[in-house]
């Protein structure tokens, strides 16, 4: 395997959790709900996936545990913001704080344990294509799911009736409600989808990226995923592109550290966060463009009138 392939492989591994968490949040935000708890749901998924894998010995059960845990945890957010119309920003923060606390407690017995890495699934024939084969067709299940989700979400949002309804709710929940669309029910499902994706992203961290449990191992990736949704102007294809761009930035600093170039490691580690800020500025400095792309009801509470 050449050096270029090796580096691209690490980029893919670093990008996958960002892509997953962002595509989930994209659907949530398209329905008009801003869930800032991605970091919390992600770290919960990571902890549960690791624990379930250790207990059962199967990383596939771990993946399932991560997904289910993320979805259930997001229900807490859904109940508060959708049923009790609590402030979405504050509730999302609460979800993150709670997730970091609970995951720390769940993961405590597993600190320092070596994990079970999710093995790649080799797709026959395709995997033998030079260069592309090892990159795209000798990957683990979670990578394949991430690509399928991008395509699936794109199809759902722009080519299905249910997706049209979801976007309608996100742009004007009042009108959608008047048309007889179930605003609250759809939003619950969208929030849970976002939670499941964040949980899966967490599972990727503790089963593929670094197969072990470290407290706070999500290290702000949930927040970067949130920025990624803005960067992608709420379009699935751009989430993929942006995710790989961010993945490349965050992995390039590791490679730079390994090469031992003369920049302090802390400055290199700060690169993904600084890049996020720069990208946010570039994407949002034009107020008109932002207004056109943002779901118009994003973050606004909805109480059905009677």
């Amino acid at each position, binding site marked *: 395997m050449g050096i270029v392939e090796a580096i691209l492989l690490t980029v893919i591994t670093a990008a996958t959790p960002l892509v997953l968490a962002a595509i989930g949040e994209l659907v949530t935000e398209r329905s008009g709900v801003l869930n800032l708890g991605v970091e919390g749901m992600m770290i919960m998924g990571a902890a549960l996936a690791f624990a379930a894998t250790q207990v059962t010995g199967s990383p596939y059960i771990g993946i399932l545990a991560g997904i289910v845990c993320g979805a259930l945890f997001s229900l807490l957010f859904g109940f508060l913001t959708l049923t*009790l119309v609590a402030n979405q920003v504050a*509730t999302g923060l609460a979800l993150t704080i709670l997730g970091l606390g609970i995951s720390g407690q769940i993961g405590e017995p597993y600190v320092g344990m070596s994990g079970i890495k999710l093995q790649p699934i080799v797709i026959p024939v395709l995997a033998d294509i030079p260069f592309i084969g090892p990159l795209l067709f000798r990957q683990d299940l979670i990578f394949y799911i991430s690509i399928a989700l991008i395509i699936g979400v794109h199809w759902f949002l722009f080519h299905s009736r249910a997706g049209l309804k979801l976007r309608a709710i996100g742009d004007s929940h009042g009108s959608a409600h008047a048309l007889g669309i179930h605003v609250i029910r759809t939003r619950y499902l969208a929030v849970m989808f976002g939670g499941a994706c964040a949980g899966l992203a967490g599972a990727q961290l503790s089963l593929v990226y670094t197969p072990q449990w470290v407290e706070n191992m999500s290290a702000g990736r949930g927040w970067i995923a949130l920025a990624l949704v803005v960067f992608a102007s709420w379009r699935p294809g751009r989430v993929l592109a942006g995710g790989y761009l961010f993945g490349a930035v965050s992995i390039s600093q590791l490679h730079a550290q390994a090469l031992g170039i003369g920049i302090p490691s802390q400055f290199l580690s700060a690169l993904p966060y600084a890049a996020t800020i720069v990208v946010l500025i570039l994407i949002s400095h034009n107020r008109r463009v932002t207004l056109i792309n943002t779901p118009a009801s994003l973050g606004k509470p909805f109480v059905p009138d009677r």
Partner: protein
Amino acid sequence: MRIELEKRAGASTLYSILSPFIALGLTVIAGGIMFAMLGKDPVSALYSFFVEPLLDIWSLHEIAIKAAPLILIGVGLAVCYRSNNWNIGAEGQFIAGAIMGSILPVTFYDWHSPLLLPLMMIMGMIGGALYAAVPAFLKAHMNTNEILTSLMLVYIAQLFLDWLVRGPWRSPDGLNFPITRDFVPEAVLPELISSGRANLGFAFAIIAAVLLWLMMRYTLKGFEITVLGQSERAGRFAGFSSRRMIWFSMLLSGALAGLAGIAEVSGAINKLQPIISPGYGFTAIIVAFLGRLNPLGVIVAGLLLALTYVGGEAVQLTLSVSDKVTRVFQGLLLFFVLSCDTLILYKIRIVFAGRTAEDGAN
């Protein structure tokens, strides 16, 4: 079965007072369940978490030490959130203030002067405000989401501090530990009362809270904050500038977080080290909400959250449960506070059968 909300005619005074207490009660119950699940006796665990720290002088000082930064940051955030600006990077501004305020005692480490301490405090406030100026500028002039930018800056501040204390600022006689030189006595914030440990930081916190309460209640600025926060459009008609408000609220909360940072470093740690905060900047968000975004409420909330830190350390020692329970308690508390706040504006009704508004729309 479903839950329906019915809007009240106005905000309920009863529930706006009661809701934090209901939330606290629910947190205690949920905490008891958590302890039971960990295999501990819930009653004695809750007792050593919430009550025992209040019974000895050492813990009370400890609570005051931890409440000081929480209240200082919390009042700033309360005003900021009132104006509908979401600074969630107070942790970063705390660190920036600590670094900026430490420039004098670290670089001129043999300067002894009564001027030193006030200069440090002022520089700490400037450091925090400057760091908050970044998301403020980006929001006011580049239309960039302040939640994400202020949060990203937290990670950058943490890494910068880490580099400082391992690199240029590392103490030459610190045995290679990543710490700066100890501050000279003139750079250490004095104790509040002699023979205690709580320092002047606590006094700063109370003064800041009272001043901001007066500002919110009796000045035009306070009115401007409330109006712009509730309706930017209405504020514009009144001639208030939301852009200026972004600057004001972010710089204010940043300066207070910076003051909290340098006060913590000067009063409690006496040097810089890689980690100077157990997440005060984030916990202060809970403090602000639990205090109902009211500066006086923030004092009470800050003391309570400080108790969760001290209580968490206590149960860690006595029951050998992990100190993560503190984080869980804090998260639960914020959840319950936010859900109980619904009671202020809405009546909650549980409907068991029959058609409801959502069904009726079909």
